[in-house]
């Protein structure tokens, strides 16, 4: 593998790790600020229409990462579909809810706050904060705070998705981006005269593509 290709791939991989760390930090801070028992971020996987655990702080922790459940049931699913935040102060221990909750949180909470992660026109996932202290009644100030965390988490989730897409493109052996990365690698390894010749060839290719682009763009 060429140095440059390795560098590009490492960049995409490295950024995925950074964005995961950012998401993790967001749920840790959310949990701490609300004094909650747990907090998690779910990503909506559009291809399977499922919610996937991307970050978990507190109860449930690491083993939940990557776990999936349907977006058609449960509080997280309905928050995603309605695009409306929702706070439940006291949950009845309805067996249907308990099963759903255990599936989607790892344990049965007494209360939860859930907010959709909206970025531009997309609903990317859901942020949940479980079991904030019950002594104080929930207030709209907390709802606002939850919205601020949701904004942060939505940006991090968007970056994470982009990093994954970039990596997927680079890993596609037949794809143009992968071919370009391979070409860049060969260029980096080439002798100075070869590089000069290759640079002129690439400039010619770029001029050719620019020329064949312009008539079609004018026709619009």
């Amino acid at each position, binding site marked *: 593998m060429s140095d440059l290709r390795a560098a590009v791939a490492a960049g995409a991989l490295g950024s995925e790790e950074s964005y995961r760390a950012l998401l993790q930090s967001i749920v840790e801070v959310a949990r701490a600020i609300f004094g909650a028992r747990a907090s998690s971020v779910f990503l909506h996987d559009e291809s399977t229409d499922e919610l996937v655990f991307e970050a978990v702080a507190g109860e449930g922790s690491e083993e939940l990462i990557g776990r999936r459940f349907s977006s058609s049931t449960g509080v997280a699913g309905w928050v995603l*579909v309605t695009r*409306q935040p929702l706070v439940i*102060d006291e949950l009845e221990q*309805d067996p249907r809810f308990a099963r759903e909750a255990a599936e989607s949180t790892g344990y049965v909470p007494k209360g939860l706050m859930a907010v959709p992660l*909206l970025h531009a026109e997309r609903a990317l996932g859901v942020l949940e904060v479980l079991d904030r202290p019950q002594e104080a009644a929930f207030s709209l100030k907390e709802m606002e705070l939850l919205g601020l965390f949701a904004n942060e988490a939505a940006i991090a989730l968007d970056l994470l998705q982009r990093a994954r897409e970039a990596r997927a493109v680079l890993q596609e052996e037949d794809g143009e981006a992968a071919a370009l990365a391979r070409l860049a690698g060969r260029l980096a390894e080439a002798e100075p005269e070869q590089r000069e010749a290759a640079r002129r060839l690439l400039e010619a290719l770029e001029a050719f593509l620019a020329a064949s682009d312009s008539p079609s763009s004018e026709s619009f």
Partner: protein
Amino acid sequence: MAKQEPAHFGDPSLPAWSLPAGSAERIAIGVEWPERVTRDWAIGGSTGEGVRVCILDSGVETGHPLVGELDGAVAVVKTEDGQIEFNEDTEGDLCGHGTACAGIVRAIAPKAGLFSVRVLGAGFKGSGPVLLGGLRWAIEQGFDVINMSLSTTKRQFAELLHELADSAYFRRTVLVASAHNMPVESYPWRFSSVISVGSHEEPDPLTFFYNPAPPVEFFARGVGVEIAWLGGSTIRSSGNSFATPHIAAICALIMSKHPELTPFQLKNVLYLTADNVGGGK
């Protein structure tokens, strides 16, 4: 179910596209407006009787103690070939959201007819076309009030939703929609032809405020609300989703007492009787 046109649609002379000399009689306003519109004039003694409220949501659990019986229930589904179908809904509520909204309307307007149109619960994919199809169908049925405790962020649906919201407005169907508590571009609550609702923290279900700084137009009870939950139970919950049916129910109370009001006039009555405006007291 037969399509029901609003009463004024039966009058061949209306809508009036122009007003020739001497024909002001044709558009006589059938409302006796008092000198001062008060809460008592607007809803005093009203039970919501005769008003049909549609809960466009996740379905409603029939027979829940806080909901009682429904006038009807329809499930909107997208078939494999992409068609939208309307089937009688026998599954009830898939997540609890619609039952919660229905319970709030029932508590405030106990004699209003409740009808469920299920557009949620089949996952995230395809929820846009199902929502649009369900709303279009509900408007065609001529419901007096449609409660929408949901929204979409997709621009591609915004234009169609806008047309639907305007057509509801002209057909005397009041659309009451949950606003966002964040500066989010979502629909239909941002359209001025709907009544958009955010939350306040007061415990009284009939306390509501007009917001002079829209797009959110009204604030209703949305914090610590006792809501109907699946399996006949209740829970305490917060969110604009639950503030919205409070205003939907208050609209039903007003329309039951003053059935001739247009959505424009109704919004005026809401404004004049809001707790931060004169008539509220």
